[in-house]
């Protein structure tokens, strides 16, 4: 019902009948070759991280001092070796684990906190005022700066990085949920539920939740990329995951010292981060487009011209 209410006035909304959001995700994301490629890249990185012990040619911590700083293409070491003589390809494959966890987990936890926060804020005006004013204050800090400050005070390590990033992310996602929940609140189905004395708890988490959650998910998907970059950035600054852990931000940072003698050491993990982030961004864009009512109309029209060629002129 939410989809129909978004469609512009005067547009024949009947075509949308029976089409769930999932259908448009399916059509939009999987029908888009770029998004398919991005999804494949992501799958590759995830599988690489999962099966790292099987795939990686060496142990990520196994040092071979005789070959230290050797460039890519060295016998048996496709991407070369680092300053301790560790195989860069193996570290890259193992590093996918922490890099992915530090990028994705904060977004998930952030969404789990933001969704109830935004809905409760939209439902109870006074509580909403307080919540949104607190969020305004957090908005007053540039995202990376707040993450750096929190990580610096919390201390290094993966759990603290995740906590810092969650605090940074919550205001953004809460604002998205809040705006969407405010819209939903004035719709007839909520009014109806309210009129038959449904408990607030049930209105929010049974009636409203499914209509609010999709926007939050789409938003989350579009920011995973920048969270990956921020998490890697914290490690680069020495505030996140600590060496000798294999993580792409740390690898870039370690390579910085040897930039003049072995530029491959920081270039390769940087390329890996860029590709991963690009995959997330492209997939996020595609997902957003496929759920955006405006682009959705194009899909509906394409459907019509697919099924009835005589009308497609």
């Amino acid at each position, binding site marked *: 019902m939410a989809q129909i209410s978004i469609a512009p006035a005067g547009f024949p909304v009947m075509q949308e009948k029976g089409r769930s959001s999932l259908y448009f995700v399916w059509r939009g994301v999987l029908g888009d070759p770029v998004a398919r490629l991005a999804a494949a890249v992501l799958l590759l990185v995830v599988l690489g991280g999962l099966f790292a012990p099987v795939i990686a040619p060496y142990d990520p911590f196994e040092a071979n001092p005789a070959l230290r700083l050797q460039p890519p293409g060295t016998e048996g070491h496709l991407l070369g070796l680092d300053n301790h003589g560790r195989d860069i390809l193996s570290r890259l494959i193992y590093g996918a684990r922490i890099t992915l966890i530090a990028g994705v987990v904060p977004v998930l936890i952030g969404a789990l906190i933001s969704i109830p926060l935004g809905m409760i804020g939209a439902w109870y005006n006074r509580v909403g005022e307080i919540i949104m004013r607190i969020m305004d204050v957090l908005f*007053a800090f*540039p995202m*990376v700066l707040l993450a750096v400050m929190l990580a610096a*005070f919390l201390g290094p390590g993966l759990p603290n990085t995740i906590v810092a990033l969650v605090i940074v992310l919550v205001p953004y996602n809460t604002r998205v949920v809040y705006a969407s929940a405010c819209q939903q609140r004035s719709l007839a189905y909520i009014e109806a539920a309210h009129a038959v004395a449904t408990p607030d708890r049930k209105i929010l988490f049974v009636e409203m939740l499914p209509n609010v959650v999709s926007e939050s998910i789409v938003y989350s998907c579009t920011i995973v990329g920048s969270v990956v970059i*921020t998490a*890697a950035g914290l490690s680069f*600054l020495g505030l996140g995951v600590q060496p000798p852990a294999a993580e792409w931000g740390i690898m*870039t940072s370690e*390579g910085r010292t040897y930039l003049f003698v072995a530029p491959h050491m920081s270039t390769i993990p940087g390329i890996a981060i*860029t590709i991963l982030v690009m995959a997330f961004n492209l997939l996020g864009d595609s997902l957003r487009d496929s759920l955006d009512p405006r682009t959705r109309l194009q899909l509906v029209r394409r459907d019509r011209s697919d099924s009835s060629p005589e009308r497609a002129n």
Partner: protein
Amino acid sequence: MSLGRYIVARLLYSVPVLIGVTIVVFLSIQLVPGDVARTILGFSASEDRVQVLRTQLGLDRPLVIQYGHWFVNVISGDLGISIAQQIPVAKILIGKTVNSLILMFASLFLVISVGFVLSCLSAGRFRTLTDRIIVVITMILASMPVFWLGILLLYFFGVKLQMFPISGMYNMADPGGLGQLLHHLVLPAVTTAASSIAIVTRVSRSALIDVLSQPYILASAARGLPRRDVVLKHGVRNMLPTFANISGLQIGYLFGSAIFSEIIFNWPGVGLQLYNSILQRDTPMIQGCVLVVAIVFVLGNLLADVVVHLLDPRRH
């Protein structure tokens, strides 16, 4: 709403936000696990010295009173004394803030000028080769970690080609001169601006494409106006509010990116100071840096909102 009233309303709205900012910065120190004074001095320090520092920082008093004192001091420009340098934090920060602002303005200038040109080129030649190249390049730029881009630029333009200096604001042997400053500014400013240029271009491009598909554009093309005039005289005007809005939003990202480029290019600004203070566990200095950046950020946003308000034709 008249412009004057809009600005006053916006200013008044910033006051509680700024007070909230001081509360967050003040409370952030509570996140330090264990005893703050002990953390600063290290575990080998004697209990007496820790106690002295505790009293000096006011850590032995109730939190609300601590905040009250700290807030009154901050209002009067006293941000405490740097533990590492034993000089007032505010004194150190003034120079650093100016240096950071120079970098920020240069980056913002790049974002606005390059972003504008690229989005006009791209949308004006929608679906041509130029458009596709710009789309791909901005896609890559938007996904690059800023610290990695900085390292790349430093390596290629600073070390390989020796075109630009790789460290500091001036040549230490022979300091001074605007030319020298600009020469030192190029790499850090490009590093800071890159991903924001990409975002501004992508958003403004789609806004301009929307505008250019409207009937009045078709009408002006039908009247025989050259494409360049159609885009630049008729199309761009309605893209400007979006452009100003997204450019204003970049201020926050620029502050974040500037931390990394200041560290990589050794630019003596607030970001580099923040990094060094974190390494030295100089808590008052860390708080001072964050506070200054947040205040500048809030004021920058205010300025951006006023500009967006001015450019929005629906205001009238």
